[in-house]
């Protein structure tokens, strides 16, 4: 996230009112195509209007389509959504296919996606099956009975045996074996 995005809204991927579960409502409410009748930069837009716009309007009765010619200006798409978002998109020198792609995107999304930073790239209704972590998970219940400060718990885990301890162990082993020898002799 850079400084230019400080005021960019952030959110999570979501479907408004469980859209698509049972019934689907197209979230795109109004689309305005602005173009010039003469200028070359509007060529793709003019083609789209001539060949595909009628079909688009028929297929999407929930969306209002406005067409607005204006002289010597860049072609533009403005999409208005059910949640109040208004998305403005520049279509200068775009071909008919590219415009179709943009309009399909606007038709299928539920708000202006370019003005929302997604905090997570996924959505789930069940974030964790085993339950969220707490400080008490996987704690030994015996730790409830400990009186603090406790010397045993304070000792580091990875301690090697010192030379003294090794020596004492050797000494004990020697004593044990000597005792056994004597026992054997006695027998």
């Amino acid at each position: 996230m850079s400084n230019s995005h400080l005021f960019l809204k952030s959110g999570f991927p979501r479907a408004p009112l469980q859209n698509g579960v049972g019934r689907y409502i197209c979230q795109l409410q109004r689309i305005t195509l602005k173009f010039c009748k003469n200028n070359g930069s509007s060529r793709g837009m003019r083609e789209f209007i001539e060949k595909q716009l009628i079909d688009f309007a028929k297929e999407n009765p929930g969306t209002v389509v406005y067409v607005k010619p204006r002289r010597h200006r860049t072609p533009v798409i403005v999409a208005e959504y059910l949640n109040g978002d208004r998305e403005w998109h520049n279509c200068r020198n775009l071909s008919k296919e590219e415009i179709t792609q943009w309009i399909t995107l606007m038709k299928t999304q539920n708000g202006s996606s370019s003005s929302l930073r997604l905090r997570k790239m996924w959505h789930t209704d069940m974030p964790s099956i085993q339950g969220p972590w707490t400080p008490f998970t996987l704690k030994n219940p015996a730790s409830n009975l400990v009186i603090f400060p406790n010397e045993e718990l304070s000792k580091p885990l990875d301690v090697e045996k010192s030379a003294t301890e090794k020596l004492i162990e050797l000494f004990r082993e020697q004593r044990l074996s000597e005792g056994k020898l004597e026992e054997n002799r006695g027998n």
Partner: protein
Amino acid sequence: MSILKRTQQWATFARTWHIYDCTWQNPFDSAKVVKNHLMGLHKPIYHPMNDCGDHVVLINTGEIALPGDEWIKRVYFHHTGYPGGASWTLAWQLHEKDPTMVMKKAVYAAMKGNLQRRHTMQRLHLFPDDKVPEEILGNVTSQIKQTRVVPKRLDHIDKETLENFPAIMDYPKDYVLR
């Protein structure tokens, strides 16, 4: 938010109290461990933007062991802000004035200098000896492991163990022990 979810939230973000015994410990190594618990870095839910740090009680800070000759070489700098207001205090002098100060500064220096650091330090409780008020000790539910073993002093070992300790050889009868 349902009652169950609210309780879940309280449980996940519950603050734990840890205790750490500073006896014979290097304050700069210990500070790295203590810092993790203070900031909540040891938790799986850690994120810099969520407030999940724990309380840490440091006891016996008067018994810390600085490495090498750091007691006489380490210098703490302070400036009052007035001309000629600079002062340099040796570690042993600072330790004489306040036995918790070396440990406190070690933990403070172990953390990154950001706006959160002062608030994180408020969760650190230092005591020069093992006398901790009951209301603080009552909160403690966990002990942080020390970074090194505390060596046992000869005069703290009981007589029986000393006498039964294996001797490599016996001194001759006319040998003068001083």
